[in-house]
């Protein structure tokens, strides 16, 4: 039953948060509910490690045969932990001075609830419902508190996301109609439909044009959620749905998908080199990282898959760290354009130290969480074909290049002297400290996290996912 | 065999169809609201004719009662139509349908 608690609690706290109007009150409430949610998730993780499998089933709509069936496996629980930690970071890092904070935190909590539901659902309809449900809060957050060009970005974001979810709906209907056992030819069709939906959400190369604008225009908490967790939904879609319902399709076209993913790796890394805005660099760098994760998921080797799942966690942590630092800089300098930034290292050594550690994490420097994931993923790709490993490896070099360029543009150099004094509040120091320590910690002792996502958790997945 | 049955039923069908089409063309062509109303009445008459003819043909009199309903409803419609036309006339002192084409797109 705790699973239901984990999923419903964010929605309830979101509704309560809509009615709060005072800044302090709503932020306090958001913090409280985020930590309770975190506690619930960790408790269910504890239960999972005891019982090995958590599931709950309640009838909802008999006529359509949809019932609330939530079943959690290893890697899904890992994603739930992720979607408990990232909102916590988002809420902690968001300064309370903003227009109607009540609905702001409400939407954030609502998004968290949708994500929890998506990761825990074991039924194809629920998967689709939560998939679409997660688009709404991000859309409203973008509209309510976005940047200057928010209308155009919102329209592009929605059109892409909903086109993806329609493709998912079509695939889903096809599977539903043929009662779960899809014919060989059918599996190809279903695979293509699911692939479009997943490729838009990850995003992969041709479907990514919504990502840079959305990352740039949304305010930092939403960017954290979108970059940290929403993009992982796509990868999870591959694991949960594609590999189950269209295994033949996946096997047959895995090379093509890996090729596309590698194109998006190289495209993302090379474009991140020439971006002029802090968040756009993050957008293209996460386009590259997500491409690598998607490629290794399709490599079919258990190391590659485990590495990719581990990397989901570490990439989320790194992206959240980067965006938080971007927010801190934005709050104090009022700009995120690389041309106007500079010389922050001399103003705040602690921030530059954390920034360096997060950068090292995201480019896969040994002793950081990125390295373990990247090595396993490159190993997975290598076992498919050495050339893939080399091309994907290029992203390490390009990654170092654009990340160091970012570090240099923001931190080093003289910098304009009229920048205000840089003192971090205590909550920021603690938060960034926690991120730094966990990045290095996950890098040195990754084993407990890797055990969490052992391939054994795939086995009992076949029984649960049909209606 | 009354005189009525000597005429085959198809002829009534054709007659009422012709009258109906004349009414329809009248509605399409005439620009004056009053004449449009009259053409609508003509279409209704065509229908009544058809009903009466076939009720005789089938020896079933419920159709004739249906004709009474049609008359009542036609009267109601004309009443409402005339009210609308009078308001139009009050507004623009003309009931030409071409002047009333501002809602478009």
């Amino acid at each position, binding site marked *: 039953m705790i699973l239901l608690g984990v999923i419903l609690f964010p929605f309830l706290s979101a509704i309560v948060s809509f009615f709060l109007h005072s800044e302090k009150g709503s932020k306090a409430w958001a913090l409280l509910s985020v930590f309770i949610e975190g506690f619930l998730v960790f408790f269910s993780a504890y239960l999972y490690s005891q019982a090995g499998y958590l599931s709950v089933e309640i009838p909802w709509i008999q006529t359509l045969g949809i019932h609330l069936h939530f079943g959690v496996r290893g890697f899904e629980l890992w994603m739930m932990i992720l979607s408990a930690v990232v909102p916590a970071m988002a809420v902690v890092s968001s300064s309370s001075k903003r227009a109607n904070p009540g609905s702001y935190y409400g939407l954030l909590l609502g998004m968290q609830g949708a994500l929890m539901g998506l990761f825990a659902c074991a039924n194809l309809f629920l998967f689709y419902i939560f998939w679409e449900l997660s688009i709404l809060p991000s859309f409203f957050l973008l509209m309510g508190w976005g940047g200057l060009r928010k209308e155009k970005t919102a329209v592009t974001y929605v*059109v892409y996301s909903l086109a993806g979810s329609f493709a998912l709906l079509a695939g889903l209907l096809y599977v539903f109609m043929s009662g779960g056992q899809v014919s060989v030819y059918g599996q190809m069709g279903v695979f293509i439909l699911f692939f479009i939906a997943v490729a838009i959400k990850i995003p992969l190369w041709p479907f990514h044009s919504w990502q840079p*604008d959305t990352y740039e225009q949304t305010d930092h908490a939403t960017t954290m959620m979108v970059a940290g967790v929403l993009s992982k939904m796509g990868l999870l879609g591959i694991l949960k749905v594609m590999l189950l319902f269209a295994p033949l399709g996946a096997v047959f076209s895995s090379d093509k998908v890996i090729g596309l993913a590698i194109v998006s790796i190289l495209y993302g890394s090379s474009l991140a080199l020439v971006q002029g805005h802090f968040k756009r660099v993050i957008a293209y760098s996460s386009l590259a990282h997500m491409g690598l994760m998607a490629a290794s998921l399709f490599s079919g080797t258990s190391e590659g898959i485990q590495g990719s799942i581990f990397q989901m966690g570490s990439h989320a942590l790194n992206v959240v760290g980067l965006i938080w630092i971007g927010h801190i800089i934005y709050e104090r300098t009022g700009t995120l354009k690389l041309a106007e930034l500079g010389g922050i290292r001399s103003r705040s050594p602690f921030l530059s130290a954390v920034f360096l550690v997060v950068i090292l994490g995201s480019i896969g420097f040994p002793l950081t969480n990125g390295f373990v994931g990247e090595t396993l993923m490159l190993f997975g790709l290598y076992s498919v074909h050495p050339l893939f490993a080399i091309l994907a490896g290029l992203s390490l070099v390009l990654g170092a290049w654009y990340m160091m360029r970012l570090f240099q543009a923001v931190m080093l150099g003289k910098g304009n002297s009229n920048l205000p004094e840089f003192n971090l509040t205590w909550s920021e120091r603690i938060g960034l400290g926690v991120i730094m320590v966990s990045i290095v910690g996950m890098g040195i002792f990754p084993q407990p996290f890797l055990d969490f996502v052992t391939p054994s958790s795939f086995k009992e997945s076949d029984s649960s996912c049909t209606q | 065999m009354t005189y009525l049955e000597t005429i085959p039923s198809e002829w009534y069908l054709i007659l009422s169809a012709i009258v109906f089409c004349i009414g329809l063309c009248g509605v*399409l062509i005439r620009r004056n609201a009053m004449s449009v109303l009259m053409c609508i009445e003509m279409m209704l008459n065509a229908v009544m004719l058809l009903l009466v003819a076939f009720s005789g043909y089938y020896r079933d009199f419920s159709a004739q009662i249906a004709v009474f309903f049609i008359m009542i409803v036609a009267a109601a419609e004309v009443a409402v139509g005339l009210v609308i036309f009078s308001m139009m006339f009050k507004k623009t002192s003309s009931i030409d349908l071409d002047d009333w084409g501002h809602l478009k797109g």
Partner: protein
Amino acid sequence: MMLFGMIATLAFPLIGFFLITLLGRVLPRPVGGWLACVSVAGAFISAGTVLLTCESSATIGLFNWFEVGNVSAHFSILVDSLSLWMSVMITGVGGLIHVYALGYMKDDVRLNSFFAYFNLFVFFMLVLVLSDSFLGMFIGWEGVGLCSYLLIGFWYETHAYAIAAKKAFVMNRIGDLGFLFAILMMLFFWGTTQFSVVFIQGLGLGAGVLTAMTMGLLIGAVGKSAQIPLFTWLPDAMAGPTPVSALIHAATMVTAGVYLIARSHVLFSGAPLTSLMVVGLGVATAVFGALVALVQRDIKKVLAYSTMSQLGYMVSAAGFGAYSAALFHMTTHAFFKALLFLAAGNVIHGLHGEQDIFKMGGLRKKLPFTFVVFLIGTLAIVGCPPFSGFFSKDAILAEAFAYSRTVFVVLCVVSVMSSFYMFRLLFLTFFGNARYGEKHPHEGALVMQIPLAILAVLATVGGCLDWPQESILTPVLGVTLVVLALSGGVAYFIFGKQVDVLAKQPVSMGYRMLWNKFYVDEVYQRIIVGPFLSLSRGLNQYFEIFLGKLDVVSLRSVRWVGYPFKKMQDGNSGTYILVMTVGILCLLVGLFL
């Protein structure tokens, strides 16, 4: 005893790093520096004791890193003669340079962070040398790259230094990619990168696979030891403070590539094609470095190119199998090159940052101690008999002689050139007329002179560490003496006396070619970096906007399709009824279909 010693060696610099960073603000200025020196000294002592006391080699398992599927990685220390000797050398030379840096960096505001990075560097270097698996080595490998980035870009206010640091890091990263590729192959074939496993099963692989693996290792070595394709970062790395150049870009980091090849000699011996490549690259680098060093004006650049050329020596030696000679030369090179760099540091410190040797001259009288020490270093590097350079360089030449005549001849030419540019450097800075204007050079503090003295002693005595056999001693002795006298005389004749140096510089085509390092940097920029950046800028402008336009275009096409129907809705009730009648007609027509 060995367990405790080795862990202490590793732990000391790490503890030093954490102490300095955490207590950085609290500690008064010099204490941070002393803390760093103490920690490195401690590491030196423990490594020394372990080297002296225990003979047997062993591996000490620290912790297993990760275990996924059939891929596993455990981090443990390998204790054998090679790794011990390397760690002693690193901590020894590193310690001396730490002491020297105390004096050199005395007035720098961020002294504590400098020494923190120094200690971190020593730690990662020890990790690189002591780990018993390629993955462990890779940790050290990239760690050293990071520390070199931090230290090169230590004075990050000036934009050029930050760019140099970034260039060094990215180029090292390219090398690391090759190394990682080799590691991936090992993981794929054997599931682990333990030396024991890899070297036993290594030869079992086919020649092709082994060549690919060793090629990966070679790329890693080339990236780290600044060999031909990936060397342009080394001269720019001189942007860092001199102790940094001394420690990282002379004594320790750049030798990591040689250590890698030496450590995995089993694999290289199994891949003849790659070892041929190694020799070729080594010799080419040696020649290139020597040539360019002939015309450089900046004192540190000259020394950087000489390091590159000496590294070429060592790599080629490792290439044709003379691993022990290469390692011996590496040790002696660490001593006298560190000595030369620190002496150069003294000169620069004395002249308040002046690095152009054309603006020096006649410092013999002003900086006598530095002159003596610099002279010893120069004699050592050119291979003058009693000094260590002679023994290690000739060991390599002997092996080269046995390997192939051409390589031997080329290496001799290189050693002649190296002696010529070293003497040129010596005479330009210390002899001739004083061209440094009204600067008042003065000797460094005592704390800078003691390490120099020790290093000078090591440079002279170093040769006896590996006394070569009698046979090659006498004939070679005569030949080298003659060559040295000749080149020294020519150098003195050109640069020694009161002469207007600027007139001396021939402005011929060849000179300009050498001066601009054969335009290698510009070639890289114009062929690789430039087009790549312009491609991504083009993509960013046109392709992204094209993609962005997709939904607008689709919307406009929907509007275009709908336009005639919109005109149909023209507000006239007549047309509406017409539409209805047409609709009905179509319905009725449908009846007959």
